[in-house]
């Protein structure tokens, strides 16, 4: 039988740090007078970052108080979005994408190897408190499947070995840049470009800040490549 359970956590006080308070005021000021509640997602995110990747009840109620909302309304928001964690998580939250494209490309193996390496099941935190492993639905990087999200970064084109390496590096405290593990640019095909080859080469990135990758000339008219 499936049982749904609501939040569990330890009591404690929660207050935004001075820096977060300043940031929160900036976020609230983006909305018109009387619509401060619109900032609730941004503030919950701030609070989650401040309290170590999850939202204790006190943090939720602090945000409610900050925005003059009824606490239950903020609880509703915090529990609706899967990106808010209502239970404590490890220092690194590993979210393995398990939706069809990733699954076809071996997401299940990624999950299994993670479980084995960390000695945890899904939804559990490793004993050293470093990693929490969960499965999630599509994270929108299907072209580079399989992939996982760790913290704020996407790690793509994974194999169990590559993922284990990432976990080792993270545990060792190293900086591990996100992105494709096989060096492809964003979601370009694995073997390099396959279409639009006859376009002039993109202009070198302009240090003055023009968006790189945007064609220098007029955008290619539809049907030009055919």
């Amino acid at each position: 039988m499936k049982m749904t359970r609501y939040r569990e956590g330890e009591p404690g006080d929660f207050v935004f740090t001075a820096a977060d308070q300043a940031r929160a005021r900036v976020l609230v000021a983006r909305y018109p007078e009387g619509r401060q509640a619109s900032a609730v997602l941004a503030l919950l995110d701030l609070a989650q970052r401040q309290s170590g990747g999850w939202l204790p009840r006190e943090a939720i109620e602090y945000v409610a108080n900050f925005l003059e909302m009824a606490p239950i309304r903020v609880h509703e928001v915090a529990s609706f979005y899967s990106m808010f964690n209502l239970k404590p998580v490890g220092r690194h939250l590993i979210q393995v994408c398990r939706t069809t494209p990733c699954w076809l490309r071996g997401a299940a193996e990624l999950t299994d190897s993670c479980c084995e390496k960390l000695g945890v099941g899904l939804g559990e935190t490793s004993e050293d408190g470093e990693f929490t492993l969960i499965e999630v639905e599509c994270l929108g990087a299907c072209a580079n499947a399989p992939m996982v999200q760790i913290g704020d970064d996407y790690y793509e084109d994974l194999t169990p070995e590559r993922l284990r390496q990432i976990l080792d590096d993270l545990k060792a405290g190293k900086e591990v840049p996100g992105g494709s593990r096989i060096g492809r640019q964003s979601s370009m095909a694995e073997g390099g470009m396959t279409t639009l080859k006859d376009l002039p080469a993109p202009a070198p990135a302009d240090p003055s800040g023009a968006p790189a990758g945007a064609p220098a000339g007029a955008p290619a008219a539809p049907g030009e490549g055919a």
Partner: protein
Amino acid sequence: MPKLTIDGKEIEVPGGVTVLQACELAGIEIPHFCYHERLSVAGNCRMCLVEMERAPKPIASCAMPAGEGMVIRTDTPAVKKARQGVMEFLLINHPLDCPICDQGGECDLQDQAMAYGVGHSRYEENKRAVKEKYMGPLIKTIMTRCIHCTRCVRFATEIAGVEELGLVGRGEHAEITALEKAIDSELSGNLIDVCPVGALTSKPYAFAARPWELVKTYSVDALDAVGSNIRVDTRGREVMRVLPRLHEDINEEWISDKTRYACDGLARQRLDRPYLRENGKLRPASWEEAFRAIAARLDGLDGGKIAALAGDLCDAESILALKDLMAGLGAANLDCRQDGAKLEAGARAGYLFNTTIAGIERADAVLLVGTNPRREAALVNARLRKRFLMGGFRVGLIGQPCDLSYPVDYLGAGPETLKDIAEGKGAFAEVLKGAERPMIVLGMAALARPDGAAILHLTCKLVEDFGLVSDGWNGFNVLHTAAARVAGLDLGFVPGAGGRDLAGILDGVHHGDIEVVYLLGADEIDMAGLGPNADEGAFVIYQGHHGDVGAHRADVILPGAAYTEKNGTYVNTEGRVQLGRLAAFPPGEAREDWTILRALSEVVGERLPYDNLGQLRQRLIEVNPVFAAIDQVEAAPRGGFGAFGAAGTLDPAPFAVAVENFYMTDPISRASETMAKCTEAFVLGQSGEATGTGG
């Protein structure tokens, strides 16, 4: 006025209605769960799907505004299939435990599954189970049955004004919760009524009865002065529950928790036979003995030494019978104002809620003086909140600060503030002056004090000066707390020529000038004022239904009937005359109150001239013609507002609190176990640490 075609029938509907409402106007029933006509539209149950021409798929009729030229079909195979599909989805996680569900027999889901469902299920997997939630001593939760219509969340947020309920989680993990806190609202019982399934049910009524074994009697409530229309459900002699009955001008379709839940007090502490005090102890007696004891005590006694007090739950018939009996005995010491409110009988406009409860919706500013409507008249407060939600409504409060579920301008604590406003000082005086239809509500905390008459006088001056009364608008309101008070004043149950009022009677007892006091259900007075016993104080005759403080002091007890046990007339704070009806017979030898007085009158030799209820009601109309018009509010005549009260000096002391504990205000609610639990959870829990969460 859009014109649309529904099932081939053309119909013109008022602007702004939804397709669902248009269908109902056309006489077509649309099944629905989340839609409730008094709540905002959520559109999440999908049961109200109908087909609309040129729409690619069925539309949710509750959320679709009716438009000109729409062609709606509610009887096509596609609609039937859509409803069956929605019903199948709703039932996937519903436990189908109807045989052990208290909602069984009066369940929307049950009824609509019968009418619109397929009769079987293709779902074979495990159903989800949801942990029960604690929502206080009144509401029992079986959250697995919840279909997430969010009616309860919307009721709590919109009508009750307490944002304590919410829908947390999403999808299959969505749950209604109050975060394990008791719902601190005096309207919380209505959550049970709005819940279309058995997720929220009545805790005190759990597993008590099935709806089809109950006898339903339409009556009116007597536990506050609102006069809420209720339905009393009885099984045999026992009142099993009280439910609201629709009355748009009074309680809409809500009732307060006291009205709903105090009914278990009707079965406790009852006086079911007459008692006589002998050698300081009460002993059971027969009616004859009791009457003879009274007759012996009254024999040859001067009328000036007899006094009578009418309580807060009395019906008009018994008040009049007592008044007539006292007139026969030559006694002029009568009072129905147990709290000592300085209101006079006479011009009705001086003691009524003249704006009327429905009229609040037309007001644009209100000054509350010495009142906490949330505790004194929860449904009046609900109407004030409804008006606030419409926007452009300012509320000023003079008295004890309190949370009324809508924002108020707190102006001050005592009469000085009222005086300042009457003199035009302060920002709120400008608000009242600028308002088109301002109103003032005078509570019992402002009137039941020695300078009450002066405050009434000052208020009437304010009414005149600020133009609160004009053609078609009367903004002067007295908010009563006692169901019997307006009837008592209408019938002139106040000191006659040379008579004493409550304070005078107690003083008379103290000095030996008053020897016999007749208490007709009067339990709210200071019994110490009647002396410790008949020798050192007054000979007290108590006629009533509960063994409360009055019965404890009494020398003779005459067992009467509670409001559910007699056919009685009540007048609410608006001056609306309503009939309460007998739902169950009084216990044991107890009798309807007017018949007791009629029988006693014969024994004391002052026979009352009515032998049946019809004759007594004729007499009511004779005494005051307002009793001829049932369920009508007559506009009080304009003018003459300076006449009420008396000029005098104001005591600067702040206004007290008229109702300290909403859950216990009368002998019935004091005898109720449920009300005791509420007192513990909501009243004591607020000051101490007694909040239990054990459920």
